[in-house]
Structure formats: structure tokens, C-alpha cells
């Protein structure tokens, strides 16, 4: 039986269910398969975004870009660009979150608890120097905060006589 967390978007819950009962070795294989597919969540040529946030680390990890597109119902589409030195787990998490959070609102993403991450990755892999798996979620939340702040500014400006 799968645990369903009402705070999680259904698509993300499906992915978590997929991982949750896998033995360690198969979990690793599936993570690698997701990391292989992270190119699919890269921005496509000609695509335009409501918000882009690209940052490069000074020393260790590579650059990570978060791109957000918002539809008329405030539903989000995420794209991510990852430098070649970004860790495999981080790539896998980017791929999982781009799929799992598609169609969520910014508020839903900002409220997302991070406790689901070990359910996907497994406790064996959540350890020192692999914790950048949380970084991707933090960057997505940060992009959502920027988006909400921007929308508030725009609303205030448009309502000011």
C-alpha cells in the first residue's frame, strides 16, 4: 500500500510511489535513468519564460538555471539547465521535480515539504556531499518566491490610480 501525502502534487506522488518500495540497487538504477533524462527538462529553443534564474557556483558545483513559465491559470512549467559537473543525484532530482511539479502553482511549490526527498533517494544516498539533492528544490522554491513577489509588484502598480 502506498502512502499518500495530500500536501504533494499528484504527479510527484506518483513518482514517489514508484521509488518508495524499490530495493536499493533498483532505486539507484532508476535515479540514473532519471538523470539520463534530465536533458528533456532543458529549455527548448525559442521558448520564452516568465522568469529565469541562472547561477554559477564559485568553486564546486556547476551552474544551475531555473526557468519558469506561467499559464493563464497560474499553473507552472519548469525547465532547468544543468552544467556538466552537476552531480548525478542532483540531475535526477531536477528531472523528477520538473515532471512532478508541472502544473502546480507557485504557492503549492513554496509550501512543499522536503521530507519526500529521502523517500525517492533512499537514506543510504542522503549523506554528506550528496545533499545538493535538496538544492534543486530550494532553487525552484526561490524562483517561485521571486515570481510571486514580481506578480505582487505588478498588481500593486496596476491598481495604483
Amino acid at each position, binding site marked *: 500500500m502506498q502512502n499518500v501525502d495530500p500536501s504533494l502534487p499528484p504527479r510527484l506522488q506518483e513518482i514517489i510511489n514508484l521509488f518508495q518500495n524499490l530495493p536499493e540497487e533498483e532505486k539507484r538504477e532508476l535515479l*540514473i535513468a532519471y*538523470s539520463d533524462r534530465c536533458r528533456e527538462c532543458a529549455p527548448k529553443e525559442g521558448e520564452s519564460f516568465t522568469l529565469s534564474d541562472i547561477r554559477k557556483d564559485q568553486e564546486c558545483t556547476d551552474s544551475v538555471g531555473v526557468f519558469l513559465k506561467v499559464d493563464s491559470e497560474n499553473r507552472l512549467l519548469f525547465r532547468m539547465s544543468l552544467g556538466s559537473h552537476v552531480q548525478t543525484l542532483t540531475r535526477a532530482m531536477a528531472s523528477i521535480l520538473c515532471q512532478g511539479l508541472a502544473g502546480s502553482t507557485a504557492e503549492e511549490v513554496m509550501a512543499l515539504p522536503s521530507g519526500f526527498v529521502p523517500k525517492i533517494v533512499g537514506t543510504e544516498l542522503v549523506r554528506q556531499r550528496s545533499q545538493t539533492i535538496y538544492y534543486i528544490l530550494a532553487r525552484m522554491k526561490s524562483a517561485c518566491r521571486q515570481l510571486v513577489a514580481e506578480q505582487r509588484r505588478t498588481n500593486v502598480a496596476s491598481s495604483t490610480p
Partner: protein
Amino acid sequence: MKTYSHPEALVETTWLADHLQDPGIRIVESNEDVLLYANGHIPGAVHIDWRSDLQDQMVRDYISPEAFAALCRRSGISPETTCIFYGDKSNWWACYALWAFRLYGHCRVKILNGGRDKWIQEGRPMVREKPSYPEVPYPVPTVRHDKEIRAFYDEVLAFLKTRGPLIDVRSPGEFTGELLHMPEYPQEGALRGGHIPGAKSVPWKTAVREDGTFKSADELARIYEEGCRLSEDQEAIVYCRIGERSSHTWFVLTYLLGHKKVRNYDGSWTEWGNRVGAPIQRP
């Protein structure tokens, strides 16, 4: 022109490509990225994980000599096998694994110059199949060489009173205390920022070129011997955050410059920056 003191401790990618089938060598990949080996590795390479294979899971220390011998046996490594270490992050973890092998007295060790990135950039083959080697005998080491190449907190404390050279290989922001972790890395639990009093900041990266290969002996001598006044027979201690970046500098000083009394303080900042009463300096 100065040459490396132990040029035999380095192999180039071209050499390795021609010796993949040599029975006397074992290629060992050691990475920070825990899934990178499974993602692709040099044909024939075995994986040694810095945490699950080399560290004791219950005590902050390295595995027992029995566990080390078992690790070697199942990896097809005998005392006569030359281990060629390589990995991500410009060989941080490869140097760490090499240093750990030296702790148990395995001295036939080399580093692949430029590591995993250089091998890939040159378009050399990578495979996902895990090799399997027949078990070979490896006697349980009777001595762990902590005294020679490893420093503990109390030894570092005593050493700083002698004003002996301490080299802090972390990034400048970590050295000044402005950062409690590596840039963009998660917090790794240090309560205080700064550096060990008297330590000189020489980030590990100073020793490598853009492609991750080591700088020439002349360049390294200028950095460490002229710049830090280190010399061949002088004691020195290197440290970072958990001992992997300092293993890289330890390798440079020990093998490339031939310094005989360099120790790695692997407790590093995660111990010092948390230790009650440990003196800290900030510029």
C-alpha cells in the same frame, strides 16, 4: 628545471589507455558524486566509495584493517597490485582514497593526472558494466600508519604552538570565516567560521591547471616552497573541511615535491570548528 620528486606516482591518460588490460594494475574510481561510477567509468575500473567503503560507519574513523583487507580482496587487489586512482572534482576523492590506502601500508599507488574529466574530454571509452575480479589474497595489515601521514586534533594543537606550518586548503571565504561551508554547498555542521591560528591559506586549486592536471614542479615549488617556506624535511600539516581537498594537497607535497613529513588533518574544519575551546583566528 625542477622535476617531480616521484614522477612514477602519476600516470597520464595516454599511458592508461594503453595499459587497461595490464594484470598488475587495478584502476580505482573514487568520487564525490555517489552515482557517477554507475553512470559510466573507465573500462575495468572498480569503485571505492569514500564513505561506505573507507570509513567506519559507527565511529568517525577509517575502516578496520580486516575490513581494508576484505575490500582489497573483493576488488582483486593484492599487496603487489598497483592501484591507479582517479575520480571527479580534479581527483579530490582519488587522492583521499590513495591516502587511505597508504594508511594501511599499501604503497603501490598512483593518480591518473587530470582524473575523470580529462579522460572524458579526450573522448576515451567509458562503460557502465561493472567488472568482476577473482578474489586475491590480501593479508590483514598489522600497522596503520596514522603517525606518519595523519594528524589528530591534539597533535595539531601542539603543532600550532611550535609555529609549524599549517596549510588551509579551503576556499578563501571559508578561510576568513565568511562562509561556514563551501560555496553553494549545504551547511556541513561547523559552528564557528575562520581558520586554525597561524594557518596559511593556499586553496587546493592553486596546485592544478584549468584541465585538472597538476602544475609543473617549478610552479608547485614556487607556491609551496617559496610562498609558504615549506621544505623537504620540515613537518607540515594540511587541512580542509573533511580531509579530501587536503588529501589532494598532501599528494602534491608528498609525491610531487617529495616532502617527507606532511600529515593530513582529516578531522579538519568539521572537527576544529565545532570543538569546544578550540582556538580560532579570523583575519
